């Protein structure tokens, strides 16, 4: 059974990755699992300078999911390069760096700097709902999606994956815009914009009032979007949104995903992504799937 996959010329030992922002740079969950067994670690968003992030509370639990408004707190690209790349390179797994910016120039600067170091792919974060500038402001306008993709692509040495926001009327329009801009792949979905209210305090639970909704509750939406985007463009897709098990991952692959990312599930089970790896393998063994290409996009 072969669970290897290839995205933009980069080979991954299996399709399972960690969703950006849920896994830091792997250090914390590396105490709970063997990072060597992951297809890739997708690190938390990195900007050109350190970002403080949003005030607390940043977390609210909801039925079958959660909201976050972390706001891309990160130590900046230099601290990331110094501390996290040497850590991750101890492991036999691919490194995908999620890049954040307030302006197109900032995204380009991060991409250019990362071109000088040993990472495998870049993931362009134009879909974070928790920051005022950059983030989802770029990801909800097809003109901007194409423009920022095209610009960042000029500065990227590594293949560029564009991470799409579900907070749009028609996600295929954004996918096509990224494709026109020269994206080497797409990852979807980022979180859905949501809200929770504490009725006893008569206030929103989150300090920022609204935040990104994730977890198994959003899986049907994510799956539908992966399915639609797979029909609309000719790019490899990293599918994510509520994946908790190997079966969930197989659904995304059948909808057209090449890679799959596990995020919020880690908060419920630190070994969630490894269990997804094992679950995919078990499905392949049980149902005689020799290569994931056999079932990819069959729906």
């Amino acid at each position, binding site marked *: 059974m072969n669970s290897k996959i290839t995205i933009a010329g980069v080979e991954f030992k299996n399709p399972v990755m960690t969703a950006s*922002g*849920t*896994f*830091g740079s792997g*250090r*914390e*969950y*590396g*105490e*709970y*699992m*063997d*990072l*060597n067994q992951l297809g890739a670690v997708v690190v*938390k968003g990195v900007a050109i300078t350190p970002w*403080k*992030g949003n*005030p*607390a*509370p*940043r*977390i*609210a*639990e909801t*039925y*079958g*999911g*959660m909201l*976050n408004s*972390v706001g891309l*707190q990160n130590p900046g690209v230099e601290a990331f390069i110094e501390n996290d790349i040497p850590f991750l390179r*101890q*492991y036999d797994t691919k490194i995908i760096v999620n890049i954040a910016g307030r302006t197109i120039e900032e995204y380009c600067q991060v991409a250019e700097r990362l071109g000088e170091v040993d990472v495998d792919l870049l993931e362009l974060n134009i879909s974070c709902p928790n920051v005022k500038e950059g983030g989802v402001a770029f990801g909800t306008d097809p003109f901007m999606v194409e423009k920022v993709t095209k610009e960042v692509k000029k500065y990227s040495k590594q293949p560029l994956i564009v991470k799409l926001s579900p907070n749009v009327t028609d996600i295929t329009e954004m996918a096509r815009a990224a494709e026109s801009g020269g994206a080497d792949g797409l990852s979807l979905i980022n979180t859905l914009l949501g809200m929770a209210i504490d009725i006893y305090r008569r206030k929103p*639970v989150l*300090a920022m009032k609204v935040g990104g909704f994730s*977890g*198994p509750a959003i899986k049907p939406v994510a799956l539908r979007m992966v399915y639609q985007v797979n029909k609309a463009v000719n790019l490899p897709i990293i599918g994510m949104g509520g994946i908790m098990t190997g079966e969930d991952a197989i659904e995304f692959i059948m909808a057209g995903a090449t890679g799959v990312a596990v995020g*919020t599930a*880690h*908060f*419920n*089970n*630190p*070994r969630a992504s490894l269990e997804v790896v094992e679950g995919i393998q078990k499905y392949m063994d049980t149902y005689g799937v020799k290569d994931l290409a056999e079932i990819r996009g069959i729906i």
Partner: protein
Amino acid sequence: MCLTKEQWKNKKRVEILKNIEIAQNVYKMDLQVGEMVKKIQPGQFINLYCNQGQRLLPRPISICQVDEKREILTIVYGVVGKGTREFAQYQSQDKVDIIGPLGNGYDELKKEQHSILIGGGLGVPPLVELAKRLSGNVEVYLGFRSDPFLVDTFKQYTNQVYVATDDGSYGYKGTVLDLLNQKKHVKEQAMIYSCGPKPMLKNIVKWAKEKQYPIQVSLEERMACGVGACVGCVCKIQNVETGEWEYRRVCKDGPVFNGREVVWDE
């Protein structure tokens, strides 16, 4: 360094020995946790996961006490939402998933020094194991709204336990800070250990600064992962010299911080 298989931490399914209400909406749960008890520092917490699958996130609950011989870990928690309401319904012999111990506990002083422990409400439980382990002169000040708990437990470890309640139903009528101010602290050196609601901690830190006592505070925040990965549970920590601050993770960098470095504006 990469960890070997034997060193990986993991979720552990453990048995509940006892789960009883000890004050209004406050429960004490004894868990049979095995060897984990040996690693625990006072002030650390565990992630307690709900058995109801729709509640994804673990609840961070501070460790109240451990019984090393019998390998029992005791937590005391308040019913404050859906998850803790679920916990309150668990019976003895039920099983729950936990991870721990997590976070950094209190720095314990060397023997024979003077310690003042100050707890408020649900901030009282993590001070129990600390009181047990500290030697020397240990004073304990506890504040509650009305219905006190764990007072007798503290009395096993020190005869200097003072209690304040907002409504005067037990002990001194007023806040724990009022109670502290009633006492004359003439000792030149003391370490303050505190845990409780933020407004209380803010006032206690101010009091400690005036007295020039060093102070360690344990903070609480809404968490997701509990292990430092998601950066969800932050507090503002400043460099006292420069006044510059940054958000630090309560779960991984704390929950115990130097009280003077915490920025209390929110």
